């Protein structure tokens, strides 16, 4: 792999990784507060994008040029749809199976929320699939990042080019990601969320609105997923079923970043994006492995991950 190709792969990997990181941040946030592995999380990305497009264009997606009003509307709507879907998934499919506040068992009915999450994701895919019958669609770019320069590309030192859009995605994604992470550290709501994640019973005994904070976490996670969809969907053709693999990749990223750490999830996402991008660019592996390698990483990280007493994913047999 030449230097220029490597640089290009690195940059597009960062763009992809930013999106993975944003999805993974939400995944980690939700996990931290509730111990729930959100199986429908990837479907929120695709669901947000397609709902936004269907509402704004009033038809199945076409790669149309949008005017300003429609652009802004679409961008806002995609993020809002992600947040709303996430809240819906929480209220319908997760919350009935969580333990009551202060309950002794901390995980609730695990089979319940696993099945609920899987079903919610499946439902999102199948309902969208009733309208969107093609395998994949090209989605318009409301942010119009490609038209920042006339040619849409920038020259790289050494001769290659990189799409301006790629840099835009990295910039916006990282800025929002870091902003959300800081807000979670610095604001009172963030502190309260941290308290709930560390000890929900003690938090409830101080009068913290545990359930409402969990709902806020799901809404933030959904909005981040919507944003991730908004950033990456115009670069590729998007199919209704793509959400699951996106979600699984984000889970891999969250696990790589140390499950439950929002900052780690963003870093894990960037790492996974770069790995995937190099896999695709490599002459040995190639694009066939774009999904295979991240999924294999997920399996391995899960199996070999953190051991010890307090590990949330592993059973303590002794």
């Amino acid at each position, binding site marked *: 792999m030449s230097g220029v190709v490597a640089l290009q792969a690195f940059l597009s990997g960062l763009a992809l990784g930013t999106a993975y990181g944003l999805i993974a941040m939400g995944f980690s946030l939700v996990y931290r507060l509730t111990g729930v592995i959100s199986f429908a999380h990837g479907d929120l990305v695709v669901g947000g994008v397609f709902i936004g497009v269907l509402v704004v264009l009033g038809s199945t997606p076409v790669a149309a040029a949008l005017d300003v009003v429609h652009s802004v509307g679409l961008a806002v709507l995609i993020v809002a749809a992600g947040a709303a879907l996430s809240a819906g998934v929480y209220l319908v499919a997760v919350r009935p199976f969580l333990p009551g506040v202060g309950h002794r068992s901390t995980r609730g009915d695990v089979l319940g929320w696993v099945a609920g999450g899987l079903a919610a994701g499946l439902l999102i895919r199948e309902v969208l*699939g009733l309208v969107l019958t093609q395998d994949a669609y090209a989605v318009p770019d409301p942010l119009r990042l490609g038209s920042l320069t006339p040619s849409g590309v920038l020259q790289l030192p050494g001769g290659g080019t990189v799409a301006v859009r790629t840099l835009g995605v990295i910039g916006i994604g990282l800025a929002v990601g870091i902003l959300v992470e800081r807000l979670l550290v610095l604001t009172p709501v963030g502190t309260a969320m941290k308290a709930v994640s560390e000890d929900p019973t003690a938090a409830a005994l101080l009068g913290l609105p545990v359930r409402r904070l969990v709902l806020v976490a799901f809404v933030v996670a959904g909005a981040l997923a919507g944003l991730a969809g908004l950033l990456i969907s115009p670069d590729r053709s998007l199919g209704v079923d793509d959400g699951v693999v996106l979600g699984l990749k984000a*889970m891999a990223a969250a696990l790589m970043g140390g499950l439950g750490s929002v900052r780690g999830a963003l870093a894990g996402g960037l790492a996974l994006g770069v790995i995937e991008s190099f896999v695709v660019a490599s002459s040995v592996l190639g694009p066939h492995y774009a999904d295979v390698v991240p999924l294999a990483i997920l*399996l391995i990280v*899960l199996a070999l991950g953190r051991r010890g*007493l307090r590990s949330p994913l592993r*059973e303590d*047999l002794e």
Partner: protein
Amino acid sequence: MTVELAHHLYLLIAVLGLALSVSYGGQPVLCQGAFLAVGGFGVVHLERAGLPLAAAAFAAAAIAACAGYLVGLLTARLRGAAVALSTWAFAWLVYALLQAFPAVSGGSQGLVRPTPARLNSPFFGVTVTLTPWAHVAVAGTLCLLSLAAVARLTRGPAGLDWAALREAPALATSLGVPVLRRRAALFATTAAIAAVSGAGITVLLGVAAPSDVSPLLSLQLFVAALIGGTARLWGPVLGLLVIAVIPPLGDALAGAVGLPAGASGGVLTALALVAVPFLREPIERLAAWWPERAERPREPVEHSGEFTTSTVSREGVMLAAQGLDVGIGETDILTGVDLEVRAGEVHALIGPNGSGKTTALRALAGALRPKGGRILLEETDVTGAGQFEMVRRGVTRTFQRTVGLERLCPHRQVLLGVRGGTPVPFAVVRHLFGSASMQDHAATADREAWRALHVTELAQRAFDRPGALGAGEQRLLQVARAVATGARVLLLDEPAVGMTGPERAALARVLRRLAAGGVAVLLVEHDLALVYGVADRITVLDRGRVLASGTPESTAADPAVRRIYLGDADPSSTPA
């Protein structure tokens, strides 16, 4: 129609296989479709490589079993939700592989093989043509065979293992059952059965295509296994209904609202999936009305009532800790603890909450690796030997909380201890095929079980429902299970919690009887009345150190001990 029936029966085989892991093993496995793919694509590739059909199907099942064992090992340590995540990712990984490599999967068209298949046997000189009816016969026979096998296994040692894996893995580990290996083996069986089912479907339809083994299929099979799995016999019928009814119902619904056929199958699966957690409780309640029918072996007549262990040195030190340092994570719990437990003695370990009693017990049982110091078992250094090793060597512990095996009667629960303490190689397979030597083993195990029940005064309740036992009897049952492993050293963690006065007296009798039989008992206990009534020796822990150790009289007179229990203020003086 016949083809559909055969197809459904083949899928039912996959559901029955999946129920092994899901309902009996308690693991939410979401990748059954992937193993169907191994069978389906495997059989076509192996045939093309020159194997006859039957051999190809066997080989594909073997490959799936190996893959299943590996995935099973990867997931064996994970909690339920992580198992679901892991297997779900595996389902998509296999699907991604099939889509990425058309050479393997034949692309979106799939791999085609000629139908109807013919089985040639040059040896017998016959050729059988597999018509759809022949497939129905084959699939139906396989279903019945697997139902019969499962029914037989549930009554034998496998049934014990499964109950332990599903309901109380930590308890099983403490009794010496190799939980991780058992889970992986169950997973391998599930995968092999799925591969047979996949191979059957491919031969029936003459095609193996990636879209037929998508993760959606895995979800549907999971739903079928969940709905059908918890109930023993009529469950599979329900499962078949789920498989057979969803697609046509989906088509009918889609037709009714004017959508393309096949579009709403997924929606229905999703609804069924949501319904499952809500349905599970009523189904389980129904299943509880139908208690597991175990063979009720008569109690052997020649019961001596005497209890002795094969201890060599009756008065010697059995288990000793020397300068034990134990920490959990960063926190040091025990520092420099010395302790000697002698054969034929009840040694009580007491101390305030958080003084490290349970930690000491776990370290002695091999469940925690000490940071420093040594643990000696009859002068052999066993520091750092795992829990298994310790159970095999005769050191077994009980838990503070009562761990439920709610479906197993006390007799069977105690048998689990016997099986953990003295395992019989390939017991499950040998029991399945009715090996004669297993009957001897079973008789020996039964004697051991009765011995443990008698010594703990539970023989009268041997076949009662565990739910019908009082809290105290449940605690005694814990002791009985540990005794049944053939333990020479028993480490008991607060056995008297929740016991009434008479039950405590019974426990005291049991402990004395065990000691009289030569067992070394280490008793962690809060109930000082019990401790002072039963113990030969007492060690008092305070904040991870030994505060005092000696006879009951000397420890009770120790001013330091009096201070932590009664306070330094004289009770008669007025409070500050």
